[in-house]
């Protein structure tokens, strides 16, 4: 499956192998990791909630769009669900292509679209004991799309 959701740690080596192809001279890999801080708060761990029926369908669409738009050979994206500790891999995108430009561009497209279109939410648990759903307050306040400012 090109897009999938995993409750267990992501095997990045297996994801790389899934896009291996002798016609390809380029492999672009993006890994998103759980970091220890967000907006001034120290993060202890994080929980992802995923609504799979829509996330899997929409995730597959994003990959199909990237294949058409950039003419790449293969792409795969795996996103974690459940409780994750600091340093764990939350998401991986692997794209293989004949040349590097298309691989980089498609990889970027897939992770950017994954962040703004898929029904995935994260709840951060801070060292203070407080936990909060993470969302873009700027977007929530202004009701705009993600054009005016940058997300990590």
């Amino acid at each position, binding site marked *: 499956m090109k897009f999938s959701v995993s409750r267990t740690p992501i095997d990045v080596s297996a994801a790389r192998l899934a896009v291996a192809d002798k016609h390809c001279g380029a492999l672009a890999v993006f890994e998103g990791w759980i970091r220890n801080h967000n907006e001034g708060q120290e993060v202890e761990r994080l929980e992802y909630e995923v609504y799979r029926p829509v996330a899997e369908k929409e995730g597959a669409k994003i990959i199909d769009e990237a294949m058409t738009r950039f003419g790449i050979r293969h792409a795969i994206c795996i996103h974690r669900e459940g409780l994750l500790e600091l340093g764990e891999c939350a998401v991986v995108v692997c794209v293989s292509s004949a040349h590097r430009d298309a691989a980089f561009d498609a990889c970027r497209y897939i992770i950017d679209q994954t962040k703004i279109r898929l029904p995935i939410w994260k709840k951060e648990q801070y060292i203070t004991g407080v936990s909060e759903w993470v969302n873009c307050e700027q977007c929530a306040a202004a*009701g705009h799309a993600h054009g005016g400012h940058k997300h990590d």
Partner: protein
Amino acid sequence: MKIGVRYFALFREQAGCDAESVEWAGGTAAELFQLMAERHPLLRNQAAALVAINDEMSDWTSTLNEGDEVLFFPPVAGG
């Protein structure tokens, strides 16, 4: 008409439930959100949220049909 509503993540906490059934005169997904926001005062920020109908991503301007299941997604944060 009868519509099923489901809430996720922050919306589930704001609504105080994960699903409910609504009987109403009909209208768009945005109008249904407004109705539910009146019933659950903490529910807000429809402009930054996403909506799906019967497990398909949809638009707030979509007109709902009898028996539809509407999914309200608060601002997403994958990756």
